């Protein structure tokens, strides 16, 4: 079957004004299962990048018999090229808190935490104003749910959910072994739902307008709309909410500067799409997944410099707990430097690709597992630039 190609379409759900309190009043009166079904039915998948179905996450946690459960909003937006969560928290904080409260209601949690990255500390005063009145409102309406803010302190790895729990528990942000998954044993080893900022806003939106509005957008695998952070060589850098599932070609037509040679989809841990593959590559879970980071590079840019920058980033941000990631990031960085300087033959790139593959298999968490994404897609598509 030939599915017609998605055209680029702007959507206005995330930032549109929504009566959050009114939405909550209605949601709290409804049957919990019914609200959960709405989220399940919408097809909403996590907007942080990994794309786990949100409704299932909520359902699994709701089914846990524990008396003590938690809702956590992951606002540790550290992926290079992502800045939409900061904008969401600035412009529509109530919609984020609303999503947390709805989740808390469904799963039976009494506490919610918003884990904010240290780089966004300037937002705390702003968030506190909303948070205080929101918590008051919940109390006044007899809802036993309170939200608190916790701060990160400059560690990319804490965006990984289990590392985030460790950090919230006052420890080094080192990822845990999985399973158990957070839905069973998360924060304080209790069943926990952890969602991205944007995901929680969509939960509020779905509660307000119903599943069908959301479901009718996007594609079969990537339902709804998505907020993209657009930067790099583009005349219109910024934040855009778009119908999910367009090709890179359509995206570049809209946001490119006429000379785009590659788009890095999903940040440093994502994939590099070269010009020759723009047409066939879908931005979404069926193609290249993304938490929203979209970086455009034009032909004046050296992809060696791009890759070097990413590897330098990973080399610093690897938590150092597991060997494949700790040593792997370092060796990939030193390796491309050696090839560039001519200290190693070009064949050494093949050895490095094998190392990247090993890291994918052997690393403990998503950080080490995804270094190979950008490494492989940049090295394979821009081999000459790595050498000369």
């Amino acid at each position: 079957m030939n599915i017609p190609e998605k055209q680029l379409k702007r959507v206005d759900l995330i930032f549109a004004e929504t009566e959050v309190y009114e939405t909550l009043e209605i949601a709290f009166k409804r049957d919990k299962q019914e609200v959960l079904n709405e989220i399940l039915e919408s097809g909403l998948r996590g907007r942080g990048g990994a794309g786990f179905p949100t409704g299932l996450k909520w359902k699994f946690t709701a089914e846990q018999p524990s008396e003590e459960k938690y809702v956590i909003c992951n606002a540790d937006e550290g992926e290079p090229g992502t800045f939409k969560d900061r904008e969401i928290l600035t412009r529509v904080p109530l919609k984020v808190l609303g999503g947390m409260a709805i989740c808390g209601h469904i799963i039976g949690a009494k506490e919610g935490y918003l884990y904010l990255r240290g780089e966004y500390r300037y937002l705390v005063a702003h968030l506190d104003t909303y948070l205080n009145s929101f918590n008051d409102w919940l109390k006044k309406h007899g809802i036993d749910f309170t939200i608190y803010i916790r701060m990160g302190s400059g560690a990319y790895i804490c965006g990984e959910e289990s590392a985030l729990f460790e950090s919230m528990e006052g420890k080094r942000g080192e990822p845990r072994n999985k399973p158990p998954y957070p839905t069973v044993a998360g924060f304080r080893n209790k069943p926990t739902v952890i969602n991205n900022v944007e995901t929680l806003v969509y939960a509020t939106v779905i509660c307000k307008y119903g599943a069908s509005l959301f479901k009718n957008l996007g594609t079969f695998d990537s339902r709804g709309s998505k907020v993209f952070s657009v930067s790099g060589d583009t005349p219109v850098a910024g934040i855009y909410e778009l119908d999910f599932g367009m090709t890179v070609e359509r995206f570049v037509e809209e946001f490119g500067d006429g000379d785009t040679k590659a788009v890095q989809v999903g940040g440093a841990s994502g994939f590099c799409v070269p010009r020759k593959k723009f047409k066939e590559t879908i931005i979404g879970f069926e193609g290249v997944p993304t938490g929203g980071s979209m970086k455009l590079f034009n032909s004046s840019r050296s992809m060696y410099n791009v890759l070097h920058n990413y590897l330098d980033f990973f080399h610093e941000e690897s938590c150092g707990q597991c060997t494949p990631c700790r040593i792997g990031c370092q060796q990939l960085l030193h390796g491309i430097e050696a090839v560039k300087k001519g200290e190693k033959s070009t064949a050494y790139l093949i050895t490095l690709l094998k190392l990247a593959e090993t890291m994918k298999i052997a690393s403990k968490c998503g950080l080490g597992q995804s270094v190979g994404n950008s490494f492989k897609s940049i090295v394979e598509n821009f081999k000459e630039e790595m050498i000369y």
Partner: protein
Amino acid sequence: MTEVQELVRSLTDRHGRTRESLLPILQGVVAKESYLSDTVMTEIAKQLDISAAQVFGTATFYSFLDTEPRGKYVIRICKTITCDMHGKRQIAKAIEDLLKIKAGETTTNKKFTLLEANCLGWCHEAPAMLINDTPYTKLTPEKVLEILTDYMQNK
């Protein structure tokens, strides 16, 4: 009670004395003192009844929890790709020339420390930097001089 004991006491009173309080306490010290001295970390360990190694291990994990003396204002220039593409080097050079320090160093009057940081989340307004908690974006060498001159004269 020494000054350090008092500072830690005020933070433990506020955040509690459990392991979970450790990060907020460390953050509180850095907000006040710019960095974590060995004395402070030992005192925190004592008051939380955990080993100093655990405090040190946790502190050194996080890039914003410095364990070396820092200036009153810590400048963090974003070095990740978009900022790098949009003139991060010129910004760094302008600051280095003005303050006569290199990345990682502190001015002799202990007012400024210059550091590099990974993605600050302002790629659409690159290049960007933080001075303590405040973000500054769309930087140019001229703009950076203006901002820092203001800090030098008025803060």
